[in-house]
């Protein structure tokens, strides 16, 4: 997709509260939220990226700061991020990027959001325990200790860098990964929202009885990647980075309880990269039963390594 070029960007408002700075752009007939002043780009295969970066900095130093990522895995195009300086607009910089023949793609960095969680997870977990026949299933399998599950969310409870939640404190199980919120300390995956803690509890909380929160899997390792900030927000490029991080750590299955209302390049790149790496992605379909499905969930009919999960009411079952 080279939709970045077709953007008609309208600067509507700038959110300067807490968390990620955002702006609205007009995209395929609707306004979407993107990271303020950020442009994601990819270089053609075979391009000398160092040479390109050097030239771009020299030519465009007044317009933007450029950074390029190093990936150890896979056959993906080299990619990076441009931070636009004051006085320039996203659409100008996207066009500027495309003026370089080395660039194969340039586009906005779409905001992603956590999916909603119900208030009372205790009752919910008890309900699900019976509904999906987990108790019977555990007679057959409780989880392979050598398997790694990636969880890309808002993090895990930490105090002074140590696991601090009584149900999520087995240091042998949890692999503290990277924080992919732009501007944050990349090594800090403490959960400042609570969403990630809920999700982790369902996948892998300490399960030694039928009471309270239980983990579906009793033994497997869990990689913690932080892609949502304290407001439950992040960017598609952060999600892409998180997927790459988890796969580099050996994750075979990745959970992502969030999404974007619109399809976009980095979201699909992440799914494709997981497919190429033989990794299963399980993602939330969206916040409304029967409503539009978020991305990347909505790619699930195109990718057999992607499972989209919706929620239904018990009285409909």
């Amino acid at each position, binding site marked *: 997709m080279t939709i970045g070029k077709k953007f008609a960007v309208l600067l509507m408002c700038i959110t300067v509260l807490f968390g990620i700075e955002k702006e609205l752009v007009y995209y395929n007939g609707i306004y979407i939220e993107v990271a303020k002043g950020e442009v994601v780009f990819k270089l053609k295969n075979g391009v000398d990226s160092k040479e390109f970066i050097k030239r771009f900095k020299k030519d465009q130093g007044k317009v933007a700061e450029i950074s390029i990522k190093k990936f150890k895995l896979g056959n993906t195009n080299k990619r990076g991020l441009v931070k636009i300086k004051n006085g320039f607009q996203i659409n100008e910089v996207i066009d500027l990027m495309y003026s370089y023949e080395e660039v194969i793609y340039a586009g906005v960095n779409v905001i992603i959001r956590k*999916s909603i*969680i*119900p208030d009372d*997870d205790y*009752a*919910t977990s008890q309900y*699900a325990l019976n*509904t*999906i*026949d*987990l108790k*019977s*299933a555990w*007679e*057959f*399998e409780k*989880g*392979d200790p050598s*398997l790694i*599950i990636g969880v890309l969310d808002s993090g895990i409870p930490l105090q002074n860098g140590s696991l601090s939640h009584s149900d999520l404190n087995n240091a042998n199980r949890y692999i503290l990964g990277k924080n992919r919120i732009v501007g944050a300390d990349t090594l800090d995956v403490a959960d400042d929202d609570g*969403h990630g803690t*809920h*999700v*982790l509890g*369902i*996948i*892998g909380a300490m399960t030694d009885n039928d009471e309270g929160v239980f983990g*579906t*899997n009793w033994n*497997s390792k869990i990689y913690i990647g932080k892609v949502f900030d304290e407001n439950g927000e992040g960017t598609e490029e952060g999600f892409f980075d998180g997927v790459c991080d988890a796969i580099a750590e050996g994750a*075979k*299955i990745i*959970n992502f*309880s969030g999404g974007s209302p619109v399809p976009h390049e980095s979201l699909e790149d992440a799914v494709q990269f997981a497919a190429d790496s*033989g990794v*299963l992605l*399980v993602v*939330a*379909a*969206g*916040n409304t*039963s*029967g409503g*539009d*499905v978020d991305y990347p*969930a*909505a790619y*699930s*009919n195109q990718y*057999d390594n*992607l*499972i*989209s*999960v*919706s*929620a*239904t*009411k*018990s009285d409909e*079952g």
Partner: protein
Amino acid sequence: MSSNGDPYYLSINYSYASGTSMAAPYVTGVASLVQSQNPTFTPAQIKQRLVETADDLQYGADGIGYDEHFGWGEINAFKALTGQTYLSTWLHSAPIVNNVQAGDVFRFYDFYSYVYYGSLTISSDMITNSGRFMWNGLLNSGRFGIDLLPYRFFFTINNDEGGYTIIESDRVSPNISSYSVVNSQHIKISFTESSLLSWVSAYVFDQNGNYLFTDFEDVKSEAGNNLTLL
């Protein structure tokens, strides 16, 4: 679904419908159990397993299989790990009977001739630790159904917990070891109802779990009667 195409999705049924954040990690958890049990499975194989063993939440108007509202149905961890696909397209769960005990015998008869067809003796390995009965449909003779008409029958009688499957009944006491009569076109069931009012239905499926026909539906039995349905 939406202009974005028809996303195929699994669902999880729970009492608070406000979010899918809770649902995805359950599926992740079950997927991880399937992967643990089958280390060589590819992502596509795991997805296929979860889809094939999901319980169809909506029967009737949309028919059996994929439907718009519920996708492929509700994930079922037990069936995902046992690979059971039959009956995944009807009602709510696997061919599971509650409160069956080892040593119980189910008997099958030809409906027209009343010739004894076969029996199934419940063994302890058919009963899970959580007290449920799971059966692959094979009789003691090693056969599934009548050779010329290879329909495969399952029957269960549910209890207060809610509907399980082919012979569906509202509040039958779980004493189903008595008599059951089945053949290729009709199902005949007799049982003694101890105290509760009951409704009984019989649905017939083929070997692949595809719905064939409804033999009878919501027939009422009186408390204390010995009920015979033809």
